[in-house]
């Protein structure tokens, strides 16, 4: 990867982290509020993000658009027949999301904001990922 490539992803990531902060998506309080259905805030953010995403993916697909390197943009489909994996894995993720009040993006953005204690959940998340890798063959998918 060339330097300009790194810069490109670094800048998009920076914008993403900045918006996560400004929209308070990183806030444990906002996640509590969302799961209590006390405010529209988080639903508005996720809903509008998905609408913008759907429209742009449709435009990209229907026009067979190419990326900046000239390659045709293809999105590999996910295997929806693995219902157990998505439902059980998703529920476990949801338990963690509500408990920690942060999903992976916010965990790192919060660390950047100076909340050093986030090192602990990040290490725990790495341990969780590693444990999944070890147990993968024994879990229903």
């Amino acid at each position, binding site marked *: 990867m060339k330097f300009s490539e790194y810069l490109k992803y670094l800048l998009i990531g920076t914008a993403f982290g900045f918006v996560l902060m400004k929209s308070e998506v990183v806030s444990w309080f906002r996640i509590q509020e969302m799961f209590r259905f006390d405010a529209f805030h988080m639903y508005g953010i996720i809903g509008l993000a998905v609408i913008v995403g759907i429209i742009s993916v449709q435009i990209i697909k229907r026009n067979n658009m190419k990326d900046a390197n000239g390659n045709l943009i293809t999105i590999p489909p996910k295997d929806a027949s693995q219902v157990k994996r*998505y439902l059980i894995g998703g529920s476990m993720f949801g338990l*963690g999301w509500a408990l920690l009040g942060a999903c992976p993006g916010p965990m790192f953005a919060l660390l950047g904001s100076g909340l050093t204690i986030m090192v602990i959940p990040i290490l725990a998340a790495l341990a969780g990922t590693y444990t*999944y890798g070890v147990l993968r063959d024994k879990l229903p998918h």
Partner: protein
Amino acid sequence: MFDILYQPWPWYVAGPIIGLTVPLLLLLGGKMFGVSANLRHACAACNFGNVEFFNYDWKKAGKWNLTFLVGSILGGFLGGYVFANPEPIALAQSTIADLQAMGIQDFNGLVPDDLFAWGALGTVPGLIVLILGGFLVGFGARYAGGCTSGHAISGLSDLQLASLIAVIGFFIGGLLMTWFIYPIILS
């Protein structure tokens, strides 16, 4: 002029910008937006026990995404430190009342000091939130094949049924935790 950098942004501004991450990554590099894959790349970079799931060329697959992640940390520094909002979050009164009843006392920042401080590691609720919470996020995201960004944003943007099932799972777990398990943990 700079006020806008300090103030919180409303959902109708933040939502579309987050959504634009999907086409931006596709158009600039043919990449699919998803943060939790980085946790797998980090495990692949170490792979102590030579676990098969982590045996792949993580540099080739993940350098772009790990760079994106470094950017997210930088964005967090800019948005949450340099241009930090000095005011407490404008939370719903009902949420504040519920959380106060559960014993949460600090409402000044983005997260409560009661749970998110080094001292909280010496308390049972702090340990559960920080360690078990993090573990479940990492385990569940990989088990489900993605997190909020990979499934709820990217996957739903591509109208993937699998992602819809995963998001339903996110809410099953989230609602169970918030309504039934969290009150026990904090009591």
